């Protein structure tokens, strides 16, 4: 009776506790040691104030600036993307924060020691086959890599120019436009949510980049003639199309090949990083189709479908089929070992879950209400403010980047 999450998940007919405790496939590992009762929510970093904290002070006494996500390395270390401080921070074993990438500036580079290299709004961290940290430097329009043993940083994809070029060629010569999320498949191909290009791109193990899902169509779309590739780009349009215009965000293509589908991610001046992605053990990719208010899935045959959200913007549908529910600008997804999908339902200020039965529930936050409250208690009674990122730990704990509360919070797992 003490653990509302357990009750909820049992009600859902899922062996969530056992599964989450024993299986690990997703990007995350173990949680760090925090004094937090199982099934409750607590703050693990941030004071609530915007700031640029000094090194090596306790995480819960460290000011953050729009923390956007956390990630756990294969060996179980927890990393924090302190988005508007333009740096990546490590939770040390004694609960302090230490910068591992990003200098005292915003900018791009130079390559070399990661803590002397400026970065611009990093959004997502994953780890490659060698255990190196790979991150999307969203506002640099690059993918960067840090060798954590040497501390050296290098650029691995994107030229830094925000555009759409390079498909079929080497990834380091290609232009990306706001790469927001990244994920590896089991063969170590890298997938990039190329947000402003409205596509997912893929870099194979030879370093060749191609389009994997979505289409970039520019200008007014016509049906009387096929779109042509605009000269000098990988964008498509019709004769009068301006190649410098943004790719159209729209919705379409469910049930068909992902390459023919259309997606909707934020573009323009107020764009925030969107389109979080994850992959399940079978190799199905899930992503937040943010302004379409949907979660979509690309299966291993390359077929795209919607798994949550009916497209309507708002909050609704808990207890019913996820595909009939409403989301509000979801920004991140994670998949649990048992197949449960977790959704950062960002503008609803909550985290939702979709079980294997396809039914949607709320697991943290009061959807539709923003604020900061509830630490130490039931996560579904706690308030959040636009959580952008979620990360699932080995023990079933859910880390939540409670972005506008300038905190990282955690729903403690129920591991016995």
């Amino acid at each position, binding site marked *: 009776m003490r653990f509302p999450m357990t009750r909820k998940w049992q009600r859902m007919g899922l062996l969530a506790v056992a599964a989450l405790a024993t299986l690990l496939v997703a990007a995350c590992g173990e949680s760090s040691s925090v004094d937090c009762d199982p099934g409750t929510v607590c703050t693990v970093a941030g004071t609530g*104030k*915007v*700031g*640029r904290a*000094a090194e090596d002070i306790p995480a819960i006494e460290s*000011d953050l*600036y*729009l923390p956007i996500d956390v990630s756990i390395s294969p060996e179980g270390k927890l990393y924090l993307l302190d988005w*508007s*401080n333009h740096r990546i921070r490590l939770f040390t074993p004694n609960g302090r924060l230490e910068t591992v990438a990003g200098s*005292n*500036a*915003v*900018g*791009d580079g130079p390559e070399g020691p990661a803590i002397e290299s400026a970065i*611009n709004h990093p959004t997502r961290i994953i780890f490659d086959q060698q255990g190196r940290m790979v991150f999307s430097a969203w*506002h*640099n*329009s690059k993918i960067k890599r840090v060798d954590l043993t040497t501390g050296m940083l290098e650029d691995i994809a994107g030229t*830094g*120019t*925000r555009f759409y070029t390079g498909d079929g060629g080497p990834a380091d010569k290609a232009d990306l436009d706001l790469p927001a999320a990244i994920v590896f498949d089991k063969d170590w191909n890298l997938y990039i949510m190329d947000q402003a290009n409205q596509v997912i791109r893929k870099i194979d193990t030879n370093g060749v980049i191609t389009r994997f899902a979505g289409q970039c169509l520019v200008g007014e779309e016509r049906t009387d003639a096929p779109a042509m590739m605009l000269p000098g780009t990988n964008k498509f349009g019709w004769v009068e199309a301006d190649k410098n215009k943004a790719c159209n965000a729209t919705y379409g293509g469910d049930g068909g090949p992902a390459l023919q589908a259309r997606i909707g991610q934020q573009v*323009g*001046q*107020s764009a925030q990083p969107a389109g979080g992605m994850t992959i399940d053990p079978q190799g199905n990719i899930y992503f937040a189709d943010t302004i379409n208010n949907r979660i979509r899935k690309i299966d291993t045959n390359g077929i795209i479908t919607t798994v949550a959200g009916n497209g309507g913007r708002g909050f609704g549908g808990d207890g019913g089929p996820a595909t009939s529910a409403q989301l509000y600008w979801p920004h991140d997804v994670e998949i649990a070992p048992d197949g449960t999908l977790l959704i950062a339902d960002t503008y609803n200020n909550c985290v939702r879950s979709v079980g294997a039965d396809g039914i949607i529930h709320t697991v943290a936050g009061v959807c539709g209400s923003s604020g900061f409250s509830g630490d130490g208690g039931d996560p579904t009674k706690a308030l959040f403010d636009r959580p952008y990122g979620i990360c699932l730990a080995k023990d079933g704990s859910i880390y939540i980047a409670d972005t506008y509360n300038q905190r990282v919070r955690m729903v403690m797992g129920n591991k016995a």
Partner: protein
Amino acid sequence: MRSASMRKSWLALVTLLLSIGLLAACGGDSATKCSDEPGSSCVWAGTGVAGLDEDGLPKTESRFYWPIDLAFGPDGTAWVVDWNNNLIRRVNPDGTLVTEIGFFAGDGPLEGDDFSEPGIDRRLIQLNHPTDITFGPDGNVYLAVWHNHKVRRFDPRTGLVRTMGGRGPEFAGDGETWNEARFDFPKSLDFGRDGTLYVLDQRNQRVRKISPDGTVSTIVGTGEAGFSGDGGAPELAQLNFDTGGNPAPSGSLAVGPDGNLYIADGLNYRIRRVDFARNVIETIAGTGERGFAGDGKPALQAQLSSVTDLEFGPDGRLYFADTQNHCIRAIDLTTGTIAMVWDGKGEGPGLQGRQRFLNRPLGIAFDKEGHLYIVDTFNSRILRATS
């Protein structure tokens, strides 16, 4: 023979005295107390730590996040462009700091329209990396909201903010009214004596102007980054500002007491002047080679880094933030020589030791009394120096 309790009292007394002493030493530190004594200087605002605090704290106990510039309004009020907090802050007469415009990073209001009259409440508008502020002859406050690619106008009488063109980064609107204008990272603003508003349009590699009748035009720059045109017409000359997908704030402009326009030509490592009477642009400082040299010598033989702010001092000299050289320098326009004003890496009067080190200062300002203010951007504080 003292009892334990007596020893405890002694201990308490000693602790108390020590605390008072420490408090006096810290609170009353001459380094942080501003005085009008010649040669003195102080930390005038900011704590040295980047962050954001609630409104109403004393300005030396309230944080900025990489402040970029400071300007004094006609009534003497100090306004701070708090770059990475994406806010315009203001210092109250009692020395407390408050947020005047903005509430978080973004572009415009969440609801409503800042492109049409009457505008949007100052605290309901989001700014993205504002870089400059200047005061118009019409009583309005003008903002270069750099990362929004917009020039915005704030009316302190109504508290409303209105956007003056800039629907997306582009080069457009020359020959039309400001509603149609588009800028690409407008970095710096200043008013001419006739009410013309000059705009350094960074990624368009141009200086634009908005005439008093509201018409927009280009007055310097071909649009292509480079260095050329000295001795010729300004509109045929090339300027060079940081570009790319996410540039750093680059360049600056100021109208001189002579009515001419002075331009910190960022990546040309020069300062240039547009002589309106002769319709000619020329270099007044910098060899074009990036470096740090030439103090005490003709400014034309000096090496500069990328300069990001220009201000005319009460002594008539042109002061500038030599940002990457971590110092403030000045040019005597009558003799043409350049001199060090505040060496943020070395010795000098006023603040001593680490306290006087600057970390990429991006802005400077003078108040009515002639004090020099240094916006020590990456130390998130503002210094004041009395000459």
